[in-house]
């Protein structure tokens, strides 16, 4: 599925969160949005997901204008995960299936399958509070997969984790989503993460977010530590920390 964002403006009253954002995401692509904290990344992602109306410009998916949530096309992983604390891991994964009216038994089987897919077979009956940050993260991803949507929108899904776990989970996630053939928009403020996971990187300026540059990562993606990776990292650093015109 192809996402096209053109001249997107986002405002909260007088506050301008994003201005004239234009980029596209091709089917099966993994695109990162990177920018400093508070620049408007989450706002752009919410607009993509139809959770926030654009103040100007438009967003289309396969040519259809986004006007509201489209659960059959897009699934969301929220910055603070948004797991239902009173539900077990399995019952959290069942939510999108419940909303589609899948019968109880199939729901359960599918949820268990997906939990196995993210390596959480044993945690199915635990509540989120009983799980580690990394495990909660996997539950949220399994729940997003349960939506059976072609597009996944992820908002800093690993922000709460340490750098090592973050890169490991990121790698696992990337492989998993590739196998599932998902189109991915991934918001992050981590250079490492963006450089390590993406096919393309949309670099945003501080608020109001504007597109500074869209970087295409060479294929095959460079390994962490390689000279190529360092070049990419350095380029991102330059873009993000370049002095702003006064």
């Amino acid at each position, binding site marked *: 599925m192809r996402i096209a964002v053109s001249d997107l403006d986002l405002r909260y009253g007088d506050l301008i969160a994003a201005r004239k954002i234009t980029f596209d995401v091709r089917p099966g692509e993994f695109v990162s949005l990177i920018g400093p904290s508070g620049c408007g990344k989450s706002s752009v992602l919410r607009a993509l997901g*139809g*959770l926030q109306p654009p103040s100007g410009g438009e967003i289309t998916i396969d040519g259809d204008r986004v006007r509201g949530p489209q*659960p*059959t096309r897009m699934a969301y992983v*929220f910055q603070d995960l948004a797991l239902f604390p009173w539900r077990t891991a399995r*019952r959290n994964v069942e939510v*999108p299936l419940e909303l*589609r009216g899948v019968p109880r038994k199939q729901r359960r089987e599918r949820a268990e399958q997906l939990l196995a897919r993210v390596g959480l077979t044993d945690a199915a009956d635990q509540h989120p509070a009983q799980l580690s940050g990394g495990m909660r993260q996997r539950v949220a991803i399994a729940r997003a997969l349960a*939506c059976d949507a072609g597009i996944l929108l992820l908002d800093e899904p690993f922000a709460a984790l340490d750098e090592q776990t973050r890169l490991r989970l990121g790698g696992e996630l990337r492989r998993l989503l590739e196998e599932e053939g998902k189109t991915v928009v991934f918001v992050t403020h981590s250079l490492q993460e963006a450089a390590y996971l993406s096919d393309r990187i949309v670099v945003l300026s501080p608020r109001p977010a504007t597109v500074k540059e869209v970087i295409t990562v060479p294929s095959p993606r460079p390994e962490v530590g390689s000279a190529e990776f360092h070049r990419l990292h350095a380029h991102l650093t330059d873009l993000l920390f370049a002095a702003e015109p006064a």
Partner: protein
Amino acid sequence: MKAAAYATVTLVTLLAWWLLTATGVTNPLILPPLGDVVAALRQQDPATWAAAMAVTTVRATAGFAAATVLAVPVGVLVGRNATLSHAYEPLLATLTAVPLVVLYPVLAATLGLGTSSKVALGGLYAFFPIAIATIRAVGQTDPVLVTAMRSMGATHGRVIRAVVVPSALPGIVAGLRIGFGLALVTVIAGEFIAGDDGVGYQLAASSQGYQSADLFAWVVLAVVLTIAVNTVFTFLATTLERTLRR
């Protein structure tokens, strides 16, 4: 563990009562000897006290049920709306403090001295704590959970049922408990003020004749009733939480 604690408290109370009266420190009119009360309880026809307790329980339950049916939906509606809850919460909180029992003569004049006026009084008292607890609990729903549910395609009704109610349930149940307690107390008060049946009437009848032992027998029965009703309430509340928060 809990049962042991209750048993100990009960035994200590009875022992203190027995000691106070047997040693003659207290005026028998204020605190009759334990033995006399036991004798009075024995003399009572079980049919009489069973009937009185049944009448009172039915009235309190009816008032409580009517209050719940009104207060929970009102609370959800007001609690979901920031403007409404700012406007109504303080008003409701103030109304709670008004000694509505002074309205009983009005209720009795319009609804008669029988069951209706007592149910109305009980219901009136139960309404406010339930509505306030619901407004507060609903107002604390995590907006992220609501957004997540919406992104997965839930309708407004579904959001209420699957997010707002389960997340607010512990708070609502706390309100229901207070509401039921108040309904019971005010039904007994109503029966005490006027009428010819129920635990309150029996208390009034025996207190007017300075039949201390009889009066205390009815106090003991009222306490037993409260404990029984509370136990049933706790059981039902636990069942409700198990059903709605899974």
